[in-house]
């Protein structure tokens, strides 16, 4: 394993067994993260982001979740092969997680101070007093006065609770912090504060960060690397610049063009038509083809491989060649009016477009 790499996920597959069938939550996912790096994991609801994170923590609810296969290499050992006891030592101390909803992720009958101190006492041999002192310090680090140590979660606002959750996660100075949509449940002003807090603390403690979100704005603010997930698969991966300025995958392009611009005179939002496929019944081939305006017959045959379109910029689309351009004869027009139609008829017919025009549209945004 590369010295520099802190975390390396290889071919991770996670499924949920339900009464309706097998949910393919994460499919053959590979990712890696260097020390001190921050990665944004982006995707729609149901794309498998949280399941991936829970997979890393080995906390996928079982039943119904099963980790089918893969490896999660972390500091030289495969987390999936660790004993329960050893995995517990990793959790909280080496890898911590901040959960989505601060209103429900704190124990309502325990003081916040105790909840933080608990985490410290699990991993370090400290007396009760020392652990409590540490909890007070951590509380102050996230901007909550230490006097509030003995208060209960219901005495805090949502933003403050999220700070407490962050404090719990950071109490043992983990090497990797996984933040699962930490700002989704918060209002916008508090969002910014919490993001700043995470970014600053990350810098101070020199930990790595996986930021799970569906908010591309959040990613731009905090992350250096971005991975875009769709239906449990990684479809595009690269640096912030790669993803934001040289977007390749049709889905990613759709994501970006669905963001309304502030100065544009837009009357309607431009969503990606259609819905995420049912993870019980994923379409054959590329899972995005039913919604893709560039879909061809070839797309339905096999899952496309990840292609390195630029150095360290990976895209999972058969229409992308090594130079990062769309292949000829495989692309339809990217105009807003034609999109809804194109999705219906591109399933059978190919619409041609010259690639220069496409480049233009990509460059513009």
């Amino acid at each position, binding site marked *: 394993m590369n010295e520099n790499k802190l975390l390396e996920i290889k071919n991770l597959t996670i499924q949920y067994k339900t009464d309706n069938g097998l949910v393919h939550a994460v499919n053959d996912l590979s990712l890696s993260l260097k020390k001190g790096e921050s990665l944004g994991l982006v995707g729609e609801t149901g794309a498998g982001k949280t399941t991936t994170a829970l997979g890393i*923590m080995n*906390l996928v609810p079982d039943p119904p979740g099963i980790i089918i296969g893969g490896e999660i290499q972390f500091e030289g050992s495969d987390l999936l092969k660790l004993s*329960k006891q050893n995995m*517990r*030592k*990793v*959790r*909280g*101390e080496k890898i*911590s*997680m901040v*959960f989505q*909803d601060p209103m*429900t*992720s*704190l*124990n*309502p*009958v*325990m003081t916040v101070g105790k*909840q933080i101190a*608990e*985490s410290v006492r*699990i*991993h370090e041999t400290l007396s009760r007093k020392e652990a409590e002192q540490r909890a007070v310090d951590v509380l102050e680090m996230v*901007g*909550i*006065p230490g006097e*509030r140590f003995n208060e*209960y979660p*219901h*005495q805090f606002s949502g*933003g*403050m609770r999220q700070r407490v*959750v962050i404090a*719990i*996660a950071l109490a043992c100075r983990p090497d990797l912090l996984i933040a699962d949509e930490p700002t989704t449940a918060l209002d916008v002003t508090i969002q910014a*504060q919490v993001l*700043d*807090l995470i970014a*600053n603390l990350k810098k101070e403690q020199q930990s790595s960060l996986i930021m799970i979100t569906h908010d591309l704005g959040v990613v731009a603010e905090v992350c250096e690397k971005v991975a875009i997930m769709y239906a449990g698969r990684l479809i595009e991966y690269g640096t912030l610049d790669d993803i934001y300025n040289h977007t390749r995958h049709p889905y990613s392009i759709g994501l970006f063009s669905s963001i309304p611009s502030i100065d544009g005179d837009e009357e309607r939002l431009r969503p990606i038509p259609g819905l995420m496929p049912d993870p019980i019944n994923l379409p054959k081939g590329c899972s995005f083809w039913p919604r893709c305006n560039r879909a061809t017959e070839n797309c339905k045959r096999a899952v496309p491989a990840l292609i390195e379109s630029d150095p360290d910029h990976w895209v999972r689309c058969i229409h992308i060649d090594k130079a990062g351009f769309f292949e000829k004869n495989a692309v339809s027009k990217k105009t807003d009016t034609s999109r809804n139609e194109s999705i219906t008829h591109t399933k059978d017919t190919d619409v041609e477009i010259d690639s220069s025009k496409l480049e233009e549209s990509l460059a513009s945004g």
Partner: protein
Amino acid sequence: MLKYIGKRFLLMIPVLLGVIIFVFTIMYLTPGNPARIMLGPNASEEAVQQLLEEKGFDRPYFVQLTDYIKNIVLRGDFGESFQTGEPVLKEILERFPTTLRLATLSVTVSLVFGLTFGIISATRQYSILDKVTTSFALLGVSMPSFWAGLMATILFSSILGWLPASGSYGWKYWILPPLVLGLHSAASIMRMTRSSMLEVIRQDYIRTARAKGQTESKVIIVHALRNALIPVVTVVGMQFGILLGGSILIESVFALPGLGRLIIGSIGKRDRMVVQGGVLFLALAFSLVNLLVDILYSFIDPRIKSQYQVTGKRRKEVPNNVDNKLEKQESN
């Protein structure tokens, strides 16, 4: 908190007053001449009439009622038993320890079994162990306790001869009754614990606790149990109250000299004063247990405690400049 408890005590007064009036009226309307009961069927009509006047049972309903209440409030006098002539309070206090002991032992048994198996079957949902315990619980809930008591007597006393069948003359007599009663209520406590636990262990904060690296047993006992306890405490409180009311059937089956049997016996003999006193006593015990349960709530869940405290004085306002302070810190 103290203010709240005081308020609850004051609220008990109208409840008890209502109970007194209700029971008194019913007993007043019940046929049967108190003097005749006291003197027996062979006494002469004059003697009965004389005693009736002497004791004041010939006076109007309202006079008797106010007199009864006045005596209780001012002198703690609940009247005398028609049968024995003893003060009612003395009779009740003689019987109450038996009932209290039976109730406490039964609740202990049901808590131990109910909680343990409730937690086990919740944490191992759908396992064989879970299925076996839930089936037993269903059986326990469905079996009437007097029937279970009879069956247990047949098995352990008649057939096996291990334990005495009835009476109260030593510790051996105190094994079967609490077990039968306790296991019966353990079944409902177990079912309540299981469903409450199942709900709690799916909560996000349980995942948070696991994400800290906490051991599974501590996750369950430290984090989940306390949150699951509120509905369980409610059920336990109710059952304790009912048991204090004298588990009449079980006391009868095992011939234990408890409050339940005293009241039942007195009803049969139209012993008005004892019935009134006994029911009032039970109402008091039930109210006290309920109050205790409510107080327990606030110790289990701080959110409930803060609700009790809201009256008038509020918690010191948290300075809303905390966030501003933070911003300053961050910008520094």
